């Protein structure tokens, strides 16, 4: 019964957040703000479903299912990256007014020729080689 | 359900046909992709529709859907993937070699 309640709670919560995420996507006024809703709410929503599923299979069918953890982990790992990229895409499309300037530099998106990974990694001594891979012709 | 699937196949087919009748390579390629979706669902549906009876043998299963069309669709998906890849690159090649991505051969060829 407790488990049932818990499962029910997770399901309801998940449903609400899932809805909120997509509702925000429709309701919020501009592309940057619209990014917020799905990245958080939907991710949590699906997380709730997954936890409910784990509990359900553990309690109802008696086998511990850990698949769901994997999916959850994966979503939590990737959602910020997707959001980051879409934010960059939004910036690139139309530089917003009132964007602060980074000290002594420029945002990577507006900075031609930038390779932040290359530069960030350069300090640790492993820049991606920027030589054409012609030599490795098959 | 059958009506939904049939209408989906119909719409996808129609959209695919509409797109392959365009005059540039890219929409045509999209059209072929749509057509392969349509035909994959069509082929799949020839095994008739069944819910929650995947063709994975188990002691608890109450029945199984027809596995053969599924296998055929898998083969078809893979093949059409290969074909799509080729046609995409050929469209690109044609664009690079001729400077426009029209699909018609047009006048003044050598």
């Amino acid at each position, binding site marked *: 019964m407790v488990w049932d309640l818990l499962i029910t709670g997770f399901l309801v919560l998940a449903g609400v957040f899932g809805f909120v995420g997509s509702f925000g996507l429709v309701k919020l006024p501009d592309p940057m703000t619209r990014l917020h809703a799905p990245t958080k709410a939907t991710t949590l929503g699906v997380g709730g479903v997954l936890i409910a599923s784990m509990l359900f299979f553990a309690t109802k069918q008696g086998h511990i299912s850990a698949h769901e953890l994997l999916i959850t982990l994966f979503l939590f790992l990737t959602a910020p990256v997707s959001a980051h990229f879409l934010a960059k895409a939004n910036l690139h499309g139309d530089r917003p007014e009132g964007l602060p300037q980074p000290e002594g530099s420029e945002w990577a998106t507006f900075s031609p020729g930038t390779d932040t990974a290359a530069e960030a990694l350069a300090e640790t001594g492993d820049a991606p080689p920027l030589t054409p891979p012609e030599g490795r012709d098959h | 359900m059958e009506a939904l699937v049939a209408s989906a196949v119909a719409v*996808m087919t129609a*959209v695919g046909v509409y797109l392959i009748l365009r*005059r540039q390579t*890219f929409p045509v390629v999209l059209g072929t992709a749509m057509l392969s979706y349509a035909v994959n669902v069509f082929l*799949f549906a020839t095994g008739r529709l069944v819910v929650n009876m995947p063709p994975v043998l188990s002691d608890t299963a109450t029945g199984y859907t027809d596995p053969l069309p599924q296998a055929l669709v898998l083969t078809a998906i*893979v093949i059409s993937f290969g*074909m799509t890849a080729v046609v995409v690159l050929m469209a*690109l090649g044609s*664009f690079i070699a001729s400077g426009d991505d029209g699909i018609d051969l047009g006048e003044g060829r050598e």
Partner: protein
Amino acid sequence: MGARNDRKSLRMNLALIVILPFLGALLPGVLIRSGRSAAALGAGLATALAFAGVLAHLPQVLAGEAVATRIDWLPALGLSASFRLDGLAALFALLILGIGLLILLYARFYLARSDPAGRFFTYLMLFQGAMLGIVLSDNILLLLIFWELTSLSSFLLIGYWSHKPEARAGALMALVVTATGGLAMIAGMLILGGIAGSYEISAIVEAGAAIRGSSQYPLALALILLGAFTKSAQFPFHFWLPRAMAAPTPVSAYLHSATMVKAGVFLLARLWPVLSGTPEWFYAVTTVGLVTMLWGATVALFRTDLKALLAYSTVSHLGLIVMLLGFGTKAAALAAVFHIINHASFKAALFMGAGIIDHETGTRDIDLLGGLRRLMPITFGLATLAALSMAGVPLLNGFLSKEMMLEAAAHTPYLGNVWLLPGLATLGALISAGYSFRLISLTFLGPERNDYPKPPHDPGPGLWLSPAVLVAVVVTVGLWPALAQPLVSAAAAAAVGGDLPEVALKIWHGVTPALAMSGIALAGGALLLTQQRRLQRAGGALARLDAGAIYTALITTAESGARRLSEALHDGAMARALAALVLVAVAAGGWAFASAGIGLQTRPMLAVNPVVGVGWLALIVASLCLPLFHRDRLLALVLIGIIGLMVSVGFVYLSAPDLALTQITVEVVTVVLMLLALNFLPKLSVAEPAPRRARDAVIAAGAGLGIGALIYALMRRDFAAPTISGYHLENAYTGGGGTNVVNVILVDFRGYDTFGEIIVLGIAALVIYALADVLLRRPNLRRLMAWSPDQPRAGDAHPVMLVVATRLVLPVALMVGVYIFLRGHNAPGGGFVAGLVVSIALVMQYMASGLAWAEARQRFEYHSLIGAGVLIAGLTGLGAWFAGRPFLTSVFGYVHLPPLEKFELASAMGFDLGVFLTVVGAVMLALASLSRLSWRAMTDERRRGEGS
């Protein structure tokens, strides 16, 4: 016994006689390096041998026997290599070979050193063989074959001086006209054969009455006559013949005296017993012959080119012969046969004479000639005798057969009128005499001139010997016609098919109507000569009338019409091709369905829950957005992504997890590929006019409705017979060792399909690689380097977050790949999906860190992966051979290593490994090849400082 065999062996087999010229055709080509003489000698040797071969049979033939030989060739068709030498065949064979020998001799001296003599003699021999084949064939299909061969070889001969436009045009015209007739004749012959039940001429002759009585007789007659008339240059198909005069003179002499044009006449004679004797025959053949005779003669009267004059005279004389054959009486047939010999002899001599004049004076225009009788006495003598024979002057052979013609005409009523034919025949003879006299007069008589293009003199004997021999025949037969009697009688007897009226060939038949007509003709001819000038003025317009011009206009129109039609249809419009396919499919499918109908639906529908409805809606909406929004190509790809997602989910819902996994993974790789390509392509499609879109929408809707209705009908009914997949469900575990039946079908029941499928994938990658390679070479490379992005590019090629995240994802994804691979046999998954998962993980590395970085870390060459994958799959399949089982027979077993749980090992896993490797190799090779393009394009860009 020995003696008999010996005697027989002296007589050459007819097939060998026919083959000899073809063998002879090879010699000139081989011998040409030894010079013209060797080539001519080689050809002459073959001709002489064949001639001797025919002569050897002659006694038998003159005795009224026919020599025959038969080799089955294509029995299913009734085509056999049957040859038969009877009188008619012998007459023609002797003409073909005899005059052929003379022509070879003449040609040896006629051709210039610069002419490719090897080719000439080869063509001539091919032609000779074809002609010989026609006359010796005893099977009409065989005859057709040789008939077409004469058209082809004469095409080569007429076009021999191919640098001359008129030679090319003449050759083409001759070919097309005679081929038209030949093709018509095929149909005619097939009808004959159909009625007779055999294609053997002897059998057809026997079935003559049945044929003439058949309802198809008029059609067959028309078709065959078309063949004969075109070949024999009968009006209105005569126009090709004068144009064929562009050929070297030996060719003209050969084709237009004894051979090519006589083929049609021969055919009429050959089929005379079968086809003649009906009003259709009489009017068609007689009329055409008559008109041709008059028309040819009239035009000849106005020509100034010697060869053209002779050509029209040939037309006229062929008309004469045809008319005689049309009469349908045996006497007329005999006259026709006799005139064939006579015309061949004097006309060949005249052509050669014309050639000599051309050769020695540099012109064939009689307006530029005249007065040659002293300068070229030999030529003068020979040509004059031949021309007088042509005019029908007594004591020469032309007179004899012309008399017989007039005699026959005198006894033949036409359209119920007894005067019409004799009158017109006399007119023909009159004009014939007229142009013959004109030829002699304008060329040789009159004053000598001082403006000949070349100083004229008689040629060496090499050139005059051949016409001399022919003129000897002209005179000999003219004086002693009885000498020709046996051959002519035998030939005529063979032609009319049996007994002949006792007609003796002699000079004096007493005072007959024919004699009077002859006299009128000669006198009239002389009168015409005196009225030269006046005549030329009056007839100039007439002479310019030319069916050939009509033909040329016709063929030009046909050609340009064909070109317009063909190019309008095949203008490279893709949409037309596809629309045709769609429309035909809808129409034909509708027809096939409607013509049989359908029974009631037998399966109940599955219930729908609302969430499924939402998925369906998403699918439909995204699909319908596609035609509306597709011009924004990126958006179109996003929409495709949605559709793919919904289809995958649909598969999951409808119990097809394997399909879902495959669909969704394939989809993302496809999107990546398309994005890679879209980088170069325009980002926006052109707008198309609304009517076109509306039309396409209608077509598309038709296709959609058709397919939708079809699948709906199929889903709502059961299989008409139990499906074979029941067996798969029953045997997947016991026989295939797996519980995922779909996978067992893929790697076992239908592993062969999968083998083909991975090969498709491998090939796709190779094609892509090869194409990318081409695009990376000049001239494409230049265009590639000149390319620059058409949209502003953000900075930051390799954002940190992505780089870090994907590096973590890679090993995890590999793990997932291994997992999906291993469980595939028993649960959704398998080598293909696993391969795609691994590929996607690798693709992420490319996207995050770049091509160079990723390739520098690549462990295996993708080519090798593909090769190894296909090989592993194939060799796994071949392994079964060692157990004596067929390709792809699988084995599986359960292994139990004590501390571990029991696990399964199956050869199908080896096969699936091959699938896995191929997929990874193929996907990666394709992506890497595409990426390399933009890499090359962008290095240049980088050098210019990254765009903006």
